């Protein structure tokens, strides 16, 4: 594995590469196809943190844990709750901030706060010719030219290797409460979650765990404000009881560890129960994002996508081998994304086969 010490060395390496490169974050078991592993582990460190401007700039290989610790010391956090999928994948390395943005992965709060990409303000990256490209910046609003910054979020390293990212952070809410409603089926649960998320009471998490027939709502805000909000929610949707809930476990899909191949679906929330009804026998599942995110563990090696047929959204395979990892794009979109990859990486160096 190659681990360049700085952006300049990485650029030279890419410019001179004569075969595929497998782009990796901080040594965690990165996904990606064939090729020489190239790691951002040594491009590490927070370069600027202005709590009063809610902005941080960090090199792409900075461990997520280091970022979260620096933010916690100032009472701030990453609002989109980046998941840690190691319980599912069995990987051991430490996730990096570059990997978080390259995969655009977001946790339960995404349903109201936005995704990782919504907080990304600027990037530096190396394109497939070895050129250093800068886009965006460190200010909150920026429409100067084409937004390559957010294009990089979710590109899984196929358009370039991120070397530095700047992003918006937020003050951590003072307090949180979880409220549960039990004895619901999937259709009832998504209906209740839709009402809760459509209310102005500040719901920041809405999950349904079928094995306990339990719908969970998270409220966050100033301690003093929460009792009144709990009362209003209960008045809107019924007798809620306070419950303990590990939202990090929901975020990371931990309930499905060891239960089979794990898939993550993005759906129109209300359609989620109909998709559940079509799951193969023996599949285990739970819902986040009010039904908009459906986690499924299916029989090893099976192609869940093929089993389900058309769905209002898309399905990504997190672990296992059945079917392609990413949902095939509609032909018009696929033509555009292929052309983009050719423009940014004309020699096809970065993670070849990732989206195929």
């Amino acid at each position, binding site marked *: 594995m190659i681990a360049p010490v700085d952006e300049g060395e990485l650029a030279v390496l890419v410019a001179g590469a004569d075969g595929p490169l497998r782009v990796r974050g901080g040594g965690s078991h990165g996904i990606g196809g064939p090729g020489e592993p190239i790691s951002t582990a040594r491009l590490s460190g927070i370069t600027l943190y202005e709590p009063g401007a809610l902005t941080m700039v960090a090199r792409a290989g900075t461990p997520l844990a280091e970022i979260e610790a620096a933010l916690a010391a100032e009472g701030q956090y990453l609002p989109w709750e980046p998941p840690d999928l190691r319980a599912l994948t069995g990987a051991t390395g430490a996730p990096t901030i570059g990997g978080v943005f390259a995969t655009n992965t977001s946790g339960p709060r995404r349903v109201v706060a936005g995704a990782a990409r919504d907080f990304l303000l600027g990037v530096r990256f190396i394109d497939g010719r070895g050129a250093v490209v800068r886009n965006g910046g460190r200010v909150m*609003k920026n429409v100067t030219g084409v937004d390559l910054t957010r294009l990089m979020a979710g590109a899984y390293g196929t358009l370039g290797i991120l070397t530095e990212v700047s992003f918006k952070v937020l003050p951590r809410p003072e307090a949180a409460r979880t409220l549960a409603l039990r004895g619901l089926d999937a259709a009832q649960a998504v209906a209740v979650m839709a009402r809760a998320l459509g209310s102005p009471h500040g719901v920041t998490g809405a999950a349904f765990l079928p094995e306990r027939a339990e719908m969970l709502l998270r409220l966050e805000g100033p301690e003093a404000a929460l009792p009144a909000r709990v009362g209003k929610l209960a008045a809107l949707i019924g007798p809620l009881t306070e419950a303990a809930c590990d939202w990090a476990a929901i975020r990371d899909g931990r309930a499905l560890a060891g239960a089979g191949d794990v898939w993550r679906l993005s759906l129109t929330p209300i359609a989620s129960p109909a998709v559940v009804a079509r799951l193969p026998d023996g599949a285990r599942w739970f819902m986040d994002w009010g039904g908009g995110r459906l986690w499924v563990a299916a029989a090893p090696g099976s192609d869940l996508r093929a089993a389900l047929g058309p769905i209002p959204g898309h399905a990504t395979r997190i672990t296992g081998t059945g079917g392609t990892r990413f949902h095939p794009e509609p032909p018009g979109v696929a033509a555009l994304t292929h052309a983009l990859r050719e423009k940014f990486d004309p020699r096809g160096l970065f993670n070849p086969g990732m989206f195929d």
Partner: protein
Amino acid sequence: MDMPAPDPRILARKAHVAARLRAALDGARVIDAPQDVIAYECDALSAYACPPLAVVLPETTAQVAAAMRVCHEEGVPVVPRGSGTSLVGGALPTADAVVIGLSAMTAVLETDFDNRFIRVQAGRTNLSVTGAIEAQGFFYAPDPSSQLACAIGGNIAMNSGGAHCLKYGVTVNNLLGVTLVLADGTVVEIGGPWMDAPGIDLLPVICGSEGQFGIVTEAVLRIVPRPEGARPVLVAFDSAEAAGATVSAIIRAGLLPVAVEYMDRPCIRACEAHARAGYPDCEAMLIIEVEGAEPEIAAQIAAIRAIAARHAPLEFREARDADEAARIWLGRKAAFGAMGRIADYICLDGVIPVSALPQVLARTAQLAAEYGLEVANVFHAGDGNLHPLILFNANDPDDLHRAEALGADILRLCVEAGGCLTGEHGVGVEKRDLMEVQFAPADLEAQMRVKDVFDPHWRLNPAKVFPLHLSAARRGAA
């Protein structure tokens, strides 16, 4: 500001192109009489104007595609247009271009409150999107001051923001999907009413593409529940430093107002003369709006009051009822109109890190004095998005040139302070020739490659955003 010379071969084929458009459009309006195309010669940056070859006003996505196909086959440039409120010449035509306007495409196609989205045709105005859902307690969050007039397609093309985007984000954060017609007439559906893309997400590059990548004909927009209540406060200061420090301290304290707006003395005076909102005559004034349930509003305002008190405010005025709230916003909402009564103005849109506010405002005042021009400031302080208004006399060409030169200097200052040329208005032709202040050649080359993908022949709004000398080869090859 230069524009490429029109292609004489296209001008010579005008009647033929118009006839083909009429045949393809099946009843939708095609305008080509010289006295009628005049209405489309400019947008809100009216210093630059040029009547287009023709204008088409389709009613369906299929008609937009048909018009695009004709222009593609004829090699004619296309300028997409929403409501023409762009402040940067984004919708400025060239004489050889066909304007495709979306003003006849205003329908609501679907409202879905359980899944919290609305699907509209892209010519629908921003305010009427909220109008279609407010009875159910929802709204569409991005709220440009031009929201009564500007269209969702224009908002998407410019990635527009507004006073409330400090909390709710700008257009890109509220856009779930689009129907996009490419330059050759291909129709692509991107995204939909779910929360992310399966892989590479094209929405962020379509959002803010300034009509250069395709024509957005339909959009799926996220809608959000209206808060239980909202209340503004007005805080007056005797210095920009005190106002700037207060903004930073509020954010630092973990308070998240929905809006923090700033006005300086010249702007306050103009607004008073025009709107009589009852503003104090002071050096700097903040309007801070918070929202939530009543006790939460009260708690946030108490915290803001305590922070402001540390910066010697001249006045702290809390709206006690809806009428007082409206009066606090009245002057701010009338600011651009009020300034327009005093003089002609250029409205800049630079962004800086909030921490640099006092230095940048001081240096702006110095620069204005050097140029012998007056600058009034009214802007979104919470996110550092400045709107210096440079006052000048449009009947005096020399005055316009000096105003433009001052504007360029102020934008350079924003970039040097760690910011950028534009936070919400876009580049268009107005800031096109300043792009190299902010970007290195490789940065712009990477951006132009994205245009190569969406519009390989560079026919959509080709003379915008990128400095002409950098795009010449690509445009020439078209």
